[in-house]
């Protein structure tokens, strides 16, 4: 068990974390998982603490996951979403930050379309700031819940071969995942259409496969990424059908991976686009475990950050 203690006010990204810090979050989440199995799924730990959920971009599952985590810890959660926020009335981000600070929250969970906004907020407020996704930059709690799910399925992360497939460029989860998997000693291979592959990707130390089959071969874990059909996704691929033929995960193709491979997807899934239904619902899928584990991991993060006092600004 980890006896190392947490000292950061904020969780902004995985890039700056050490393997020991990641290990502490995962071990703490292990203990919180038990709370979900109790008849009364609530502990009094964060009673009297206020958490503001500040979502400048739509998110159902990440926000719900944070909300459930907050409720299970007895914190008071408060939701601000972009549609109702003063930001649409022309308030600057800095004024929003100062107004939030004046309400004296203990923690702020923020999602924003632009990279670096959570970092700016963290410098302005005494509250602990949790990045729930800043554009395509980092989404640390998703990477942590993915790592937790891998550890649960495989017993370890070190030495595993993890294939990440799909829209590498626009995914908000891929950078955090690459950082985390490398820090914990896994090997990462990525594959996707050229139009969805960032130019600098090799700089992150990943292997780039030229096609899906090369990436899948001998993989211990396959992470499928979502094609953002509602955004740029449609214009970057010739057709949904062709995308599935080239990069979609079917049962036959999954046979290239190790026999005990696990399949993951951060959701929401496009069945028949990036993943076949029989794979998503199949025995190797841990997609729903990812969702359950997300609550435990977010409880761990809320718990650890709430013990660190922020300085006055």
């Amino acid at each position: 068990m980890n006896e190392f203690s947490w000292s950061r006010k904020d969780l902004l990204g995985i890039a700056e974390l050490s393997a020991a810090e990641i290990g502490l979050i995962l071990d703490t989440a292990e203990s919180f998982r038990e709370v979900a199995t109790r008849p009364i799924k609530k502990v009094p730990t964060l009673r009297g603490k206020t958490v503001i959920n500040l979502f400048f971009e739509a998110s159902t599952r990440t926000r719900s996951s944070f909300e459930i985590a907050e409720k299970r810890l007895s914190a008071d959660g408060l939701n601000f979403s972009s549609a109702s926020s003063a930001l649409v009335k022309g308030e600057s981000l800095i004024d929003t930050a100062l107004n939030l600070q004046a309400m004296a929250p203990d923690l702020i969970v923020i999602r924003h379309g632009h990279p670096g906004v959570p970092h700016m907020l963290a410098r302005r407020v005494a509250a602990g700031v949790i990045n729930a996704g800043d554009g395509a930059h980092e989404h640390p709690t998703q990477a942590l819940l993915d790592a937790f799910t891998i550890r649960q399925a495989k017993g370890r992360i070190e030495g595993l071969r993890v294939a990440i497939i799909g829209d590498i460029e626009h995914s908000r989860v891929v950078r955090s995942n690459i950082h985390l998997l490398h820090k914990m000693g896994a090997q990462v291979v990525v594959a996707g259409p050229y139009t969805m592959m960032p130019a600098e990707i090799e700089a992150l130390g990943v292997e780039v496969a030229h096609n899906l089959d090369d990436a899948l071969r001998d993989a211990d874990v396959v992470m499928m990424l979502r094609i953002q059909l509602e955004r740029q996704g449609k214009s970057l691929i010739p057709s949904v059908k062709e995308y599935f033929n080239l990069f979609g995960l079917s049962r036959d193709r999954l046979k290239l991976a190790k026999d005990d491979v696990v399949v993951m997807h951060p959701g929401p899934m496009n069945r028949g686009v990036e993943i076949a239904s029989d794979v998503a619902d199949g025995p190797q899928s841990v997609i729903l475990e990812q969702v359950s584990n997300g609550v435990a991991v977010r409880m761990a993060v809320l718990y650890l950050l709430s013990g660190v006092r922020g300085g006055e600004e």
Partner: protein
Amino acid sequence: MAGETKRDERILDARQMRRIVRRMAGELVEQNEGVEDLLLVGIRTRGVPLAEALAAEIEAMEGVVVARGVLDITLYRDDLSTIAPQPVVKETHIPSSIEGRTVVLCDDVLYTGRTIRAALDALIDYGRAKAVRLAVLIDRGHRELPIQGDVVGQTLATQPDDLVVVAFEATDQRDEVVIKRSSRQE
């Protein structure tokens, strides 16, 4: 602290500890008039080996395996907002429903009573036990809450600055109770 030294004094050795645990097990069986509905719950860290030792003695006495559980009270502490960083949370394991059972909370040392208050709150979140009892190896006084042990191994007169250290074979490779007395003159 400067000018302060600790004198170690052994209160119990392995043989004395064994006798006391055996007597406590006997008292538990007697008070409960049987062992069928008993659930021994050890409070982390050193309530756990005490619960195991009591269970072993009861089994030797009655020929019945007693159910055990492990409770981590970190999430129920009343000092979380005053200490930093956050203490490490470890797993709780309560084997089955506590509904209708007599739960015996086990801890090595009873001091302020705050740990037991937290343990009671935690336990209540697992259901409605028929009764909850408290078994402690050492009662060192200085209570800050109205909590008393039902089965007590030994009562020790201590100063608030003293440290009572209980070691168990399972966690510390030896059975003994040592008091580290503060020599500072009040």
